[in-house]
């Protein structure tokens, strides 16, 4: 990791995104004092993690390895009681809350079944519950939806969003799954080779790329020489002519103002313009653009 610097406000959900080896897990492990950085400082609520880890991590929980952060020989209830005691909380005083927590995660029927007999999705929810029973103010989630089926992943996302919205818990989560980041996070930090490529609001990044992409749909076919001239004078990508005699092609322009000369040329050539729309890139495209483009926040 080099020059990684960011802050997260109370109640925010911030995503860490990046290809394998980008440093997402390392970042989370540095924050949780499991890795000591060679330089720099990490503070939680103003307390340095390096010089006072116990104090700094008092209100911090983490789910670091999906369904592997729990004791498989213990039942969900026993797991939660143990993790509460790990925080110095007497489990006897938490029994009601433990039941409520397990109920909210739809684990109440399995609360006395050893964790090894639960499905992966349930184990992952139990890992989340084990982190929540410690009453965290900051929750670190490393790949929280990894290995989950669509339904379990959706349930997990909803739960994560509710944590910030209803309980004002601050969340920092890493994921390979760009849908998760787009769906859950307010801000995103994109890492590449141990450096921050970009940190911004998710909607800002989507806007940025949406503004640079237009789609023009034409009625009828274009002559080959017209296509060639368009390719020569503009940065365009054309889709093949379709059977319906309708040619649609996406236009990628370096600057938004290029769209007007292009439309003028099409008009001169007598092309029938059916529609012009701003492209809507999904977060995966944004991510690839940023990572492959090598934009550097520094």
């Amino acid at each position, binding site marked *: 990791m080099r020059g990684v610097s960011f802050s997260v406000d109370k109640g925010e959900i911030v995503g860490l995104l990046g290809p394998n080896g980008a440093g997402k897990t390392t970042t989370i*492990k540095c924050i949780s*004092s*499991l*890795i000591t950085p060679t330089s720099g400082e990490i503070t939680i609520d103003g307390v340095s993690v390096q010089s006072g880890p116990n104090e700094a991590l008092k209100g*911090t929980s*983490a789910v670091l390895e999906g369904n592997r952060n729990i004791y498989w020989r213990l039942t969900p209830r026993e797991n939660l009681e143990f993790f509460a005691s790990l925080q110095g909380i007497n*489990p006897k005083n938490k029994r009601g809350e433990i039941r409520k927590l397990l109920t909210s995660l739809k684990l109440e029927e399995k609360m006395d079944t050893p964790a090894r007999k639960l499905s992966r999705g349930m184990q992952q929810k139990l890992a989340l519950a084990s982190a929540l029973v410690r009453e965290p103010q900051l929750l670190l989630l490393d790949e929280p939806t990894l290995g989950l089926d669509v339904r379990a992943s959706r349930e997990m996302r909803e739960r994560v969003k509710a944590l910030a919205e209803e309980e004002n818990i601050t969340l920092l989560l890493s994921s390979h799954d760009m849908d998760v980041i787009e769906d859950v996070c307010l801000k995103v930090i994109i890492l590449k080779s141990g450096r921050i490529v970009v940190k911004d609001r998710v909607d800002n990044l989507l806007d940025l790329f949406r503004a640079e992409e237009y789609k023009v749909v034409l009625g009828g076919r274009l002559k080959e020489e017209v296509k060639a001239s368009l390719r020569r004078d503009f940065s365009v990508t054309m889709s093949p002519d379709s059977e319906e005699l309708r040619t649609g092609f996406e236009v990628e322009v370096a600057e938004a103002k290029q769209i007007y000369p292009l439309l003028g040329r099409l008009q001169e050539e007598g092309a029938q313009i059916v529609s012009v729309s701003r492209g809507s890139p999904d977060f995966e495209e944004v991510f690839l653009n940023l990572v492959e483009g090598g934009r550097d926040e520094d």
Partner: protein
Amino acid sequence: MKIRLILLWGILKKNVIERKRYFFNSISGLLTIYLIFVLIFFGMKSFVSGPQFGNTADGLVVGFFLWNFIVQVYSELSNALIREARWGTLEQLYMSPVGFGWISFSQVLSSLAIFFLANVGFLYLIMLTTGRFLSLRIASTFPLLIITLLGVAGIGYFLGGLTLVFKRVESLLQIVQFLFVALVMVPVESLPLLKHFPVSFGASLIRRVMIDGTPITGLPPSDLGFLLLNSTVYFLLGYGAFKYFERVAKRKGLLGHY
């Protein structure tokens, strides 16, 4: 302090549940040790006879009881670290605001309590098998055992530290258990240098209580003081080494990977 006691109780409870739930696994280890003892005892019986046999058998019973206890205690921390790292729960323990120092000590203490009960049962079993009934003198044996095991815990911490950094230490753990055979069985009276090693002097004093029937109050205070000093030094050295290896593991990002 209350927080620490809650944590200690939580770890003890977890250990008891795990051992109960995997009872066969827990008991099969003790049965294997018992079978080894039976083989050694009856093997020895065919070679040694007459009045000498009684003393040798008594020594074997005490030595085997101590050795088994010692091996369990020193290897517990390393084994616990290996288990927790494999399960992916070690990181969770490290993130406790109570601190891993107390967590590891609680792990040692709770295991000690469980091992104590198991080993007293084991001692009675081998006394029944051999027909050699020794004086347990709990009031005298227990404090000596605890002080001796303090030094053993130091060795356990040292090996635990190695486990954090080097991961595969099972072979070393096996070698160390043979070293402990020598330290427990060879009397310090015949090789005084051994007095400065861990365990040896404690084993010698425990033998005096259990075989000769000397109460702890009948032992010279200087001997008790030396045992306490010896165990404290080994404990502090071991714990210091553990903290050093822990820093190395955190710096290299090795914590939890197995």
